[in-house]
């Protein structure tokens, strides 16, 4: 409920007010029409002239048209309200996700966040667009019509009430039985999907291990569970339609019957020509009552899905970013120094630390490399600097100030982070290079050209349109190596004080790797360079090399020093180059 209230504007409330007004008019007119039946019947029986019927007919027609216009107006408002609601909700979800930390994104999983921002919001929009009108209309119709009926013989009201009660009981029982299974449905469908997907992706492995039967059993288990579940719900839900039909038809009949009994028990002298007309019009009105309750059931059928979506969206909206910036806007005199003091890190809920007691300091303009085997924690370590994660213990300082005191934007403006996996966005090459905001002036064309040159991304000149050439989503129209060079250029174009290369070089061929390193030295001497690498060749010339093993620092120094002093480093070196090549 709160979710709905928070995402509607003042204008929407005004719309809603008008909507209620229109629906009242609509209901009034619709209930008015059958009443004319009451007037017509005695006229028939008394043999009135045609002109009288035409007059009543004209009035009825007017009512019908006016009611049609009101309904259309209501539909208009309704669609604006629900579209505007979903627009705002979608935006709020999106900005919330934008504020999440990496760990939170991982916890939700990117795929799940995508479906939440798109499908779940759409689901709610549909629910609102169908449900809103019904929710307003049904009770008004029901109350109005019941008033109309009850002003006459009570027997009619009782008949109607019994039918409605029967209807509600049927629906409540059916929904109560089916609801828990409905909730399970999505999970079971996902399960089927995943099992089949795994089978498809691993088809070679499946065959090579002769595991066809293993996979078949896995799928059949998922298939059985889904079928059992959906068989139950659809069997239960298929009671609804026959039951409703029965109740409606029976009600009409019973009202006629009651009418006959009432008439039979009325003294002959009091019987007017109108008496039976009343019965006929009540039959119509009662139908409206039952109909409106039936529409309410539609909401109940849609409700479980909507509730699931609401819950999923609330999960996102109620999560607050666990990485919050401070107020310090950054100091411009003292730049590019990084210091780690006794930093340890573990993922929430993990048993063991990924990083343990890490301390080092880097001064301006230095180039420092981190090397170690897979899982040694080197990538995690550099991810602590832009606060993608926060250290579990210990502190990280930039320019002598603890990074938690920095305004997040100011902190990240000091840093040029280049990831292992090059990420491109759809748009031109230029859009990709000037991506984001570096807190300084807009980069000029010369800046971009220089960044491209340093990053060895000369191929851009040869692309159709140069810097205006189009990059498709995910960068699928450029090669992996080209993507990597563009992402390096993007980092350089920000002109940051600290450059972080998070295993960026491994995807480059040896030649480009070397060229790039000499360019960095030549053009970006004043920037601090932090490099995570796998190849010894990439980092041989760094001022300082820090060797990590199982999350701990096991060596610190230059290449030559480490070769003598650090056995882990020597092992790594020997695994790549032979003795004589060193």
């Amino acid at each position, binding site marked *: 409920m709160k979710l709905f209230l928070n995402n509607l504007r003042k204008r929407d409330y005004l719309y809603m007010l008008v909507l209620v007004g229109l629906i009242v008019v609509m209901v009034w007119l619709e209930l008015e029409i059958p009443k004319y039946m009451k007037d017509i019947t005695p006229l028939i029986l008394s043999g009135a002239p045609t002109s009288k019927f035409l007059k009543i007919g004209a009035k009825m027609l007017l009512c019908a048209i006016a009611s049609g216009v009101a309904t259309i107006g209501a539909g208009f408002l309704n669609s604006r309200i629900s579209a505007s609601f979903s627009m705002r909700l979608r935006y709020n979800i999106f900005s919330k996700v934008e504020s999440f930390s990496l760990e939170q994104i991982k916890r939700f999983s990117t795929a799940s966040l995508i479906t939440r921002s798109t499908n779940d919001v759409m689901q709610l929009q549909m629910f609102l667009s169908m449900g809103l009108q019904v929710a307003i209309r049904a009770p008004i119709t029901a109350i109005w019509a019941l008033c109309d009926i009850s002003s006459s013989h009570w027997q009619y009201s009782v008949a109607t009430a019994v039918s409605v009660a029967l209807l509600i009981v049927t629906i409540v029982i059916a929904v109560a039985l089916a609801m828990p299974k409905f909730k399970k449905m999505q999970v079971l469908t996902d399960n089927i999907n995943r099992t089949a997907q795994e089978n498809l992706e691993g088809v070679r492995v499946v065959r090579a291990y002769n595991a066809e039967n293993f996979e078949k059993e896995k799928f059949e288990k998922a298939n059985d569970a889904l079928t059992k579940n959906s068989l139950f719900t659809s069997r239960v839900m298929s009671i609804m339609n026959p039951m409703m039909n029965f109740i409606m038809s029976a009600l009409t009949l019973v009202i*006629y019957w009651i009418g006959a009994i009432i008439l039979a028990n009325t003294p002959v002298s009091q019987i007017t020509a109108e008496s039976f007309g009343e019965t006929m019009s009540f039959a119509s009105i009662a139908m409206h009552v039952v109909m409106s309750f039936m529409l309410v059931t539609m909401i109940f059928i849609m409700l479980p899905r909507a509730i699931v979506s609401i819950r999923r969206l609330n999960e996102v909206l109620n999560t607050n970013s666990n990485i919050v910036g401070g107020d310090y806007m950054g100091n411009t005199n003292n730049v590019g120094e990084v210091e780690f003091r006794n930093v340890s890190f573990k993922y929430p809920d993990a048993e063991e630390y990924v990083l343990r007691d890490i301390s080092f300091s880097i001064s301006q303009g230095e180039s420092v490399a981190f090397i170690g085997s897979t899982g040694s924690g080197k990538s995690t370590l550099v991810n602590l600097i832009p606060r993608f994660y926060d250290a579990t213990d210990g502190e990280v300082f930039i320019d002598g100030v603890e990074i938690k005191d920095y305004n997040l934007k100011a902190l990240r403006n000091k840093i040029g982070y280049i990831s292992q996996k090059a990420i491109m966005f759809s748009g031109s090459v230029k859009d990709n290079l000037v991506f984001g905001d570096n807190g300084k002036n807009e980069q000029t064309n010369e800046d971009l050209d220089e960044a491209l040159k340093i990053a060895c991304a000369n191929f851009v000149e040869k692309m159709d349109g140069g810097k205006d050439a189009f990059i498709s989503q995910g960068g699928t129209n450029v090669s992996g190596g080209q993507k990597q060079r563009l992402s390096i250029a993007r980092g350089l174009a920000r002109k940051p004080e600290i450059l972080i290369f998070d295993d960026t070089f491994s995807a480059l061929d040896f030649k480009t790797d070397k060229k790039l390193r000499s360019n960095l030295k030549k053009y970006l001497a004043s920037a601090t360079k932090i490099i995570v690498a796998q190849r010894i060749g990439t980092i041989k010339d760094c001022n300082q090399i820090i060797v990590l093993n199982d999350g701990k620092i096991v060596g610190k120094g230059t290449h030559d020093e480490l070769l003598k002093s650090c056995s882990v480093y020597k092992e790594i070196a020997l695994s790549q180059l032979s003795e004589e090549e060193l």
Partner: protein
Amino acid sequence: MPRPDRRSFGKPKDTKKAFKDLFLYLKPYVVAIVFAVIFSIIVTIITLAGPSFIEEITNLITKNITNIPLQKVAKLCIIILTLYALSAILNYAVGFIMSTVSNLFSKKLRKDISRKINVLPLSYLDHTTHGDMLSRITNDVDLISSNLSNSIITLLTSALLLIGSVVMMFIKSWLLAICVISLSLLGFVFIAIIMKKSQKYFVRQQSSLGQLNGHVEEIYTGHTIVKAYNAEEEAKEKFTSINNELYNSAWKSQFLSGLMMPIMALIGNIGYVIIAVLGAILCIENKIDIGVIASFTMYIGYFSRPLNQIAQITTQLQSTLAASERVFEVLNQNELENENYKTQKIENCKGKVVFDHVRFGYNKNTPIIKDFSAVVKPGQKVAIVGPTGAGKTTIVNLLMRFYEVDGGQILIDDIPTTNITRENLHDLFSMVLQDTWIFNGTVKDNVVYSKENVSADEVVEACKSVGLHHFIKTLPNGYDTMLSENTSISAGQKQLLTIARAMIQNSPMLILDEATSSVDTRLELAIQKAINKLTKNRTAFIIAHRLSTIKNADLILVMQNGDVVESGTHKELLEKGGFYAELYNSQFED
């Protein structure tokens, strides 16, 4: 991933064939369906008879208003109520039967498709995307099952109801019938026009939605970069502009399609007015009884409802047929050859492998492997190297008979691989591929996989020997941690898990296809040691682009353009100074 729109109105290519396939598959359920059909015909007849009874009651009352024959009325009412109750029960029976049929039917379809996946030749699977196949298993099957059960019965009853009500109306009063029916038809034309108009906005909405999904996907996937470059505002701006567009097309399409209901209601009301007024006039002129007015108001409902439903079902049926066509396209594919007749079997495999003038191409016109011959002695470690596209992985595909050779043959222990079953052949190899494959399950499940009777110690041992033990211990539940897309596990770690899996398999021969390419070199060296232990006295095929890893192979086959251009040991090949030496030295060029 944005899912394909379930309601997309695809059109079948060959309607007749689609129908035939579908009905052949429905055969086991034919008896149940026939029962459902009979029941629903009875229900329809009762429905059509209803208004006539009401008419009779009305006439009974109005004609004898001062002396109502209550007994007669009561008798009639009880008869009708009984009929209604019977109709409700039959109706539920129909619902029960059809929901059972459709659920069992879709279960069977899903099962058959999944079975099919494991018996289809890879040449077919490699050419279909997974998303496409998955959407056949879920979306298409769902569409078929939910529409089919509805369509058959609804189409039938709707048609009956439509014809029946027209006939009844004409019997009661042809003049009233003509007026009312022509009015309803007019309304339908009007609705059709509006639907056509709103189509434009639906298309626009769909495209905005697609754009929005694309943007969301891109920004969420690139979250790190968006954060690192302070691009949140920029992303929000773009989002807002697409979102506004979506708002505009969304409310318009919703409004226009929402017009259908009020228009239907309006037509219903006008019809009601016509019946009341015209009926009254006819009644006074004694052309009809007053009861006809009552029954007409019901018949007009029976007439316009099925008209509406038939229109919906034709589009539904069309998309159902298109979906079933997509499903049967898979089910009707040729399967791998049944090999039960093969009696030859390799048991205690020594590991001699001979490639004898092997020829192969993924399509017949462009051969990939032209004339490949090699002899591998038992226990040798064979490395296959060469530039991308030289045909290295193809050799594995042929060795495992994922694809069949076009010419020549491959022999294991001097028996051609085509003489034994694929199952027997696959038992001879443990395989680790470049594309690491981890499924949803615990770490242990992933390592053990389909092998039976594996002890916990063996699992730990295998993980230790690939250097994963420490990492697994850092996971929340150690070896019982569920591996899913949410678990943070690197590509290298995944690869190590698959190597551990191969170790558990413990087959006589080993294939490593770029198995260590996402593992760092030091670890690779450690794995090599583990593998060396494992491959002692076993034949192993190692495909690698990192030449440092295969220096100690017994035999290096250098491939170029589908043929072996050089072979020998690392030392021999370097001394030779040919293609291999060139490849090797390019690593160190400055």
